[in-house]
């Protein structure tokens, strides 16, 4: 159907009403809907398809967390012909722990991905689709985990490749000498990303105000960190660590990072001297994850009733 506009013969135009065309192509169900929500959440977290202001925070953070790797590689390049040992300003293990930057990022991104859905009442529209609460939680947590993993892992890749290229022994030798890094870094980064994401999303799900959620995330991490520090005390080397260090939610993934890289908890860390510190850290980590998931599944349970 069309309604033609009149005019000169040489400049005749028409406005077409294309009507409605049914869709007869392939159609997914829960899996497809979950994947779609996952992708949409990643786009939102990174500020893609949004105003430029929304892109500033994630990409500035990516730049910030990559700077140590670039500086480290740069120093290696400049000093590669010097007689003294290579100067390393950061190791792969330490690089996993750029947690203050990541903590800030979680406090910015997790509320932005979660809170508007409730505040702007988008949830009923989502759950009118082939999607249930578990799918929603999976997509949202998965998106935050993916972004955090990417932001933690990419700098490590820059560091590793850069070190390979400036290695005095040659790139291949550096690769063979450090091949264990290729699994240790992804595992440690994944452990860190998973916990920050679950905690960040769980806290964000409890409010529809982004500023409250962000402050709560930072507050929860910092309060547990300070509380653990006060209880354990500062003179760890002399008196040994304490199990109270396990209440430090911020540090739990770092204890596991040490287990991954060192095969044990850090001898100079807050769990120093506690027997089975690694297992206890793992147990505490799993408890935090489980608590976060329970909060999330209960929070979005209503759509399944």
């Amino acid at each position, binding site marked *: 159907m069309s309604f033609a506009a009149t005019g000169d013969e040489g400049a005749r135009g028409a406005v077409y009403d*294309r009507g409605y065309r*049914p*869709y007869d192509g392939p159609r997914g169900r829960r899996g497809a809907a979950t994947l*779609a929500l996952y992708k949409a959440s990643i786009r939102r977290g990174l500020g893609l*398809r949004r105003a430029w202001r929304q892109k500033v925070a994630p990409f500035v953070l990516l730049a910030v967390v990559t700077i140590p790797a670039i500086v480290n590689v740069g120093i290696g390049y400049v000093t590669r012909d010097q007689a003294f040992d290579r100067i390393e300003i950061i190791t792969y293990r330490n690089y996993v722990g750029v947690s203050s930057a990541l903590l800030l990022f979680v406090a910015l991104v997790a509320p932005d991905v979660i809170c508007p859905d409730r505040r702007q009442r*988008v949830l*009923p529209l989502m759950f*009118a*689709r*082939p999607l249930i609460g578990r799918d929603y939680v999976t997509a949202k947590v998965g998106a935050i985990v993916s972004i955090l993993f990417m932001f933690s892992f990419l700098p490590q890749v820059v560091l590793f490749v850069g070190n390979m290229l400036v290695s005095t022994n040659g790139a291949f030798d550096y690769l063979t000498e450090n091949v264990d890094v290729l699994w240790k870094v992804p595992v440690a980064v994944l452990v860190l990303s998973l916990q920050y994401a679950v905690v960040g999303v769980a806290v964000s799900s409890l409010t529809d105000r982004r500023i409250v959620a962000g402050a709560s995330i930072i507050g929860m991490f910092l309060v547990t960190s300070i509380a653990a520090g006060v209880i354990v005390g500062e003179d760890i080397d002399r008196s040994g660590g304490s199990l109270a260090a396990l209440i430090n939610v911020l540090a739990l993934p770092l204890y596991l990072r040490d287990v991954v890289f060192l095969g044990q908890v850090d001898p100079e860390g807050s769990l120093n001297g506690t027997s089975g510190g690694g297992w206890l850290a793992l147990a505490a980590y799993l408890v935090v994850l489980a608590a976060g998931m329970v909060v999330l599944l209960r929070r979005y349970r209503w759509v399944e009733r």
Partner: protein
Amino acid sequence: MRPTWQTSCVVDTEPLLRLTGLTKRYPGVTALDDLTVEVPRGLIGLVGANGAGKTTTFRLLLGLAHPTEGQIEVCGIDVAADPIGVRSRLGFMPEHDCLPLDQTAADVVSTFGELSGLPARAARQRASDILDLVGLDEARFRPIGGFSTGMRQRTKLAQALVGDPELVLLDEPTAGLDPLGREEMLALVARLGTFGISVLMATHLLDDVQQVCDHVVMIDAGRLVVSGTTDSLLERTGFVTVDVGAGGADLTAALASQSIHATWADGLVEVTIDSEVDLDVLRDVVAELRLPMYRLTSRLTSLDDVFLRRASAGAGAGTSGAAG
């Protein structure tokens, strides 16, 4: 032609909705009380006052709430047994604001297309087509936060349609619209029927239903008042309305001399008709006065009259008119 996956409702004899003994109780409140009704395909109005149970019915249809008692079938599918299957066939336009304001209409509708199970490319294409259909083609790359109420309503309708549903649930689609926007929205809703999409439109505005819907389900306090085709509910009243232009006063006087009661108001003459003979007399009088006969219509009861009469007659009285 509807896609092959939507075969269950293609059979015309299959009711679109079948509610059997549907009851939903919340603590201290019975939102729906033993509601039993069958609804055919087409444009359906779900009518009731605020708090009558319309939104609760939608929540139950979508599987977002469980009935306390009773059963719901949408397109022959039991909602309790396969809520995901039902939702795959439905589109939903809520009454309240529900759109992410910092995203463009194209992004939002496309994302909801993907959430409905469409591949990303198809979702983008359909989002473009549907936004064009609802009249937002020029504005689709603008953030929704800058939209007027009418444009937001259209965007909400677009997201409900992007998944190519068999049935669209519209909750108060004309709420907050100015008269022109309301007319445009109702025209859009009416067009959906020509596309083979059934519509269940919940509203308390009976004029909207009368204008668009071919079947009406009226509920009050969670109970069925009446269900039937719109035409069957609009009864003749014994009045005809005549438009004879400026000659209304002359016609009224002439009819009075023939013992036929008539009143002239707003340029129209309303004539009381007791028998077919009165219509003949009316015709002859108009001819004798050489008046132009622009229009002659039977005056019908409005849905407001039907609702008020049936509701006051008793909550259960209308069930005998349950649709077929």
